[in-house]
């Protein structure tokens, strides 16, 4: 293991911040703050990827970090801000479950993911293996956020946060996917966001709101 202990410590710190941010997103009701948190998560992800790249001398991870920085910190938050401004939705009033309960479920999920990640992190030879549990926990928390939110934009931010968690899992377990795959994933995320932007306007035009309760009419037997 050629890792610098300071690098290792930094990565653990970033992982912890990532988990905190995931919980913060779970508790945040204001859409604009949610976007800020998402951008912060992207920044932490990019920084930790860069630290992994430095401490393990994997040059391709720098590219991955730059890609994350550009996409997750600048492009996507900017697109989301623009959408929020144009659609004029700033507040989210209620979730399906109240926030303390959501947090409790979140804690249970974190314990679960650490358990699930244990056998894999034992096999991993990377310096970052201890953070795999955190990566899985952030995926689970993002998933929880998607389930408990009623409005379209928070659900999408949950979806993007889940993708952040997956990327973190990829860096911490394997030093990142091959570049061509990472590019493909980034392209998909970006195109997906653009299509959703169009799609939001369609929903809005049709229902005058982005509340997903309007989208609960298709049932088994109508």
């Amino acid at each position, binding site marked *: 293991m050629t890792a610098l202990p300071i690098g290792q410590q930094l990565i653990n710190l970033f992982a912890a911040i990532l988990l905190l941010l995931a919980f913060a997103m779970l508790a945040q009701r204001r859409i604009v703050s949610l976007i800020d948190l998402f951008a912060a998560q992207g920044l932490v992800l990019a920084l930790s990827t860069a630290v992994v790249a430095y401490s393990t001398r994997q040059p391709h991870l720098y590219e991955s970090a730059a890609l994350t920085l550009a996409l997750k910190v600048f492009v996507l938050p900017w697109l989301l801000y623009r959408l929020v401004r144009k659609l004029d939705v700033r507040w989210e009033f209620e979730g399906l479950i109240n926030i303390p309960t959501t947090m409790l479920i979140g804690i249970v999920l974190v314990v679960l993911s650490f358990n699930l990640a244990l056998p894999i992190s034992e096999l991993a030879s990377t310096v970052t293996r201890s953070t795999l549990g955190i990566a899985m926990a952030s995926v689970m928390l993002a998933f929880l956020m*998607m389930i408990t939110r009623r409005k379209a934009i928070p659900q999408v931010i949950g979806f993007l946060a889940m993708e952040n968690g997956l990327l973190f899992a*990829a860096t911490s377990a394997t030093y990142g996917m*091959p570049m061509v795959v990472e590019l493909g*994933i980034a392209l998909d995320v970006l195109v997906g966001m653009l299509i959703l932007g169009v799609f939001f306007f369609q929903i809005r035009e049709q229902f005058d709101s982005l509340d997903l309760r309007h*989208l609960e009419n298709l049932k088994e037997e109508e």
Partner: protein
Amino acid sequence: MPEIVFVLALPVLGAALLALVGHRSFAPSVNVAVSTGTFVAAAALTARVIEDGPLLVLGRQFLLDPFNVFLVALTAFVGMTTSLFSRPYMRIEEEHGRLTPGRLRLYHSMFQLFMFTMLLALTTNNVGILWVAMEAATLATVLLVSLYRTPASLEAAWKYFILCGVGIAQALFGTILLYFAAEKLLGAGGGALLWTELNAVRENLEPTVVSLAFVFLLVGYGTKVGLVPLHNWLPDAHAEGPTPVSAVLSGLLLNVALYAVVRCKVLVDGALPDAFAKDLMIGFGLLSVVVAALLLSRQKDIKRLFAYSSIEHMGIITFAFGIGGPIANFAGLLHMTVHSLTKSAIFFAVGHAVQKTGTQVMDDIRGLVTISPMVGWGLALGALAILGMPPFGVFASEFLILTTAMREQPWATPFLLAALGVAFAAVFSKVQPMVFGETTAMRLPVRPAMIPVFTHLSLVLMLGLWIPPFLADWYRNAAKLIG
């Protein structure tokens, strides 16, 4: 080598061209021309692979073996017939005022992009790119499902996006885990995600990681296959999107997603000493067959009815691949082919039936044979074929699957038989009055495009009576490959 470039480049160029052409009157013809070109290239590619054996081209990034090349040909073929069908169909939709010219342009362009993602998913040798292409396929079809911009279609598209997006995120995690297992043996870098490389070392992959990876991959891609209980998006997306989109979703997307699952299963089977992947696939497959069959009789919307029938058939195919072995795999591949052809033919006929009667509610569709004999007989024959009546091809594949199941998994046979019986009763009792009942519906002057329907149905009939030797060899080779 050049064929594969054409197969992939034509749809991309076509999408760009159609975006430029816009809503000029010849746009549908351009769409047909591009799809036909793709099919010709795919046929040439297939001929090449039959002659020279498997191809590994463009820096090992693209793989063509007996398993995927037949799906490439099938995908390009159904794409071509769908473009032929959609030319008159979409014109009529536009005349009815359900579509604006701008949306027609979106439809044509996205249709070609969708074809590209399907063909890329099939031909790529990189498991990561396979994921990227599957996700791109979701993105290309979201706006197609919501093409009519009705409240119901927006809801269906949103559900489709979120459910498939979350599902496919699980598949990404599975892919990461697979890479993690492979990287130890193959070293970091591009090689460790290439399927051929993975296949070469599959006996040595770490079993715990691979089994966990397969669970994520099966759940992820299984969402797109429409396996119960991950199927919720499927009936909505099929019912609310335009009919050509329903036809390609059922006929192509489900197949390609299942292809992804089977590719991963091959790796997992090698890595694990037990039948973990097989048991999971048998379980999911059987559950899908039974649940879908029971839900069939409750449907009121004609497109939802056939969407549930797709879930049922995907369950049968998953079950067949789960059993594995030369005969079940052969039957699974045959069933993939005939289901794809029959179901798209049915959707074509349904699309015209809906246009003629102006409703998707089955109780209001009556006496199609008197309104339009072609559409009526097309629907009746298609329904008989999909229900597994001899001499259609579906009968042959279902018969093979059932007999293998009796030998390999005898406990599952009663469930399968009962489900097939229930499905028969449900679909037949609904289709019969629609085709032959007393008509009360108003007549709309529409000239149907029935050539694709009857082409598909006669191919299915042929496959039931006689499988050409080259095709049979090809299935046998693919079946051996899947193991």
